[in-house]
């Protein structure tokens, strides 16, 4: 299992960036969050924090 971004929904609010314990999330100039797969350890902490439900398990 791994976390993916539903790009259509992501606003770039960066809540996930702030709470990620692995510092694996970044907001690039596209303002759609980018997950660094090398840093992400699938803790899934971010899933519940997304205010617009743009993060999903895949």
């Amino acid at each position, binding site marked *: 299992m791994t976390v993916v971004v539903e790009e259509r929904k992501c606003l*770039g609010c960066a809540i996930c960036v702030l709470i990620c314990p692995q510092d694996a999330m970044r907001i690039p100039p596209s303002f759609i969050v980018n997950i660094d797969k090398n840093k992400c350890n699938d803790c899934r902490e971010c899933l519940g924090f997304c205010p617009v439900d743009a993060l999903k398990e895949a």
Partner: protein
Amino acid sequence: MEREKCDCVIIGSGIGGMCAAARLACSGYKTMVIEKLPIIGGRYTQIDYKGYKIPTGAWMILYGKNDPVYHTLTEVKAPGIEMAHTGPIPQIYRLGGKDYEMKGKGALRDMISWASRDKDEADRVVTLLKRAMLWYEPPDTITFDDWLFQYTDNKTLHDLYQCLIAAWCGANSWEITAGQWFRVLKGMALGGNPFILKNGVKDIIDALEKVIKGNKGEVFTKTRARKIIVEDGAARGIIAERQGERLEIEAKTVISNAGPRKTIELAGENNFDRAYLKEVQQRVRPAAGIDYMIVSDEPMLEPPTVLFTADTRRLECFMADRSPQGKYIVRTASVPESTVLYSPTKEYNIFLQDLKDTFPNFDKCGGKILIARNFYDEWPFYRSWPGDCIGQKTPIESLYNVGDAVIPEGYIGGTGAAESARVVVEDIQARVKPD
């Protein structure tokens, strides 16, 4: 399925929901707050990130000690909060190639004189604005910018108003109607000096939570509303989901802090009359923009100053603060040319140029952008343009909205959300007795 029963259930733990809950719990109503996220506060708290406290939204107590948030804390006897500074926050306006500090009584008048080409123009504009405030409120059929163009084409004056409007309303002077702006301005006149908190706005949310829990109320996180139960045109409670379990909460009153659009979705569109749906569609329109947290080793701007820049490509509002570990932080809101439709990528590149122009000492101070964020749509600066909000009551009996889409006239943002809660609680107290 689990079942609970209470007097009032509140969907969402933003400042509106928490103020309503604290006021209700304090006056004897059995109160429950449900929040879908793992933390409470919504856009009125902060998250620790790399040693900095990053606000999720609100940052300043806009109306100071005259703020409905501050009044709520006093009235519910919440634990005290600590201000980050004594004395007012200096407000500097950078326009027409010069800096002007807005200070003391009659500051706006002085500033208009400063921005005018001559005394005649200053007198004319001051008289017109006074009339618009005290005699005839301009209509909502003209934007503020167009309204002002009837009387002056002085760019510095237009820029001054763009500073005020974009910074306070999160929308441009060519978007906000003249009526909207004067309604906001009348309210601002009642406010005290804005202040920021030593430990951030989370102190306020924590204080309210303590009051709720100390008065037999409950706050459930990770609990998502799935449905507002409506019977015979009246709200009877909600169905929620908590850790995969269904939870039914029967309540005499339901308060939604999730935004009017979400409220409609939860209660079912068929339960609302068409006029209401149309009103929500037209008027609940978010104030949007991009927000930057900039950190530096040396101060680029002396805390707690606020700097408005009108000479840059976009209107920017820079707010300076100290970070806990002795560094400096500047929060910036950059308002796109159109807050309705914009490209965040394009705005970002424009901002980088503006930043360089505003702070030539950026590199020397060890400045870097810690985080850039977009406030938009369901996570906006404000859920509705200030001065253009709808009422708190819905056509469904015992179902209210609170928050920054249903702000009473003259208030803004969190300040207005707290005031919407006060109005709603007053109505509930007149209508239903606690069990």
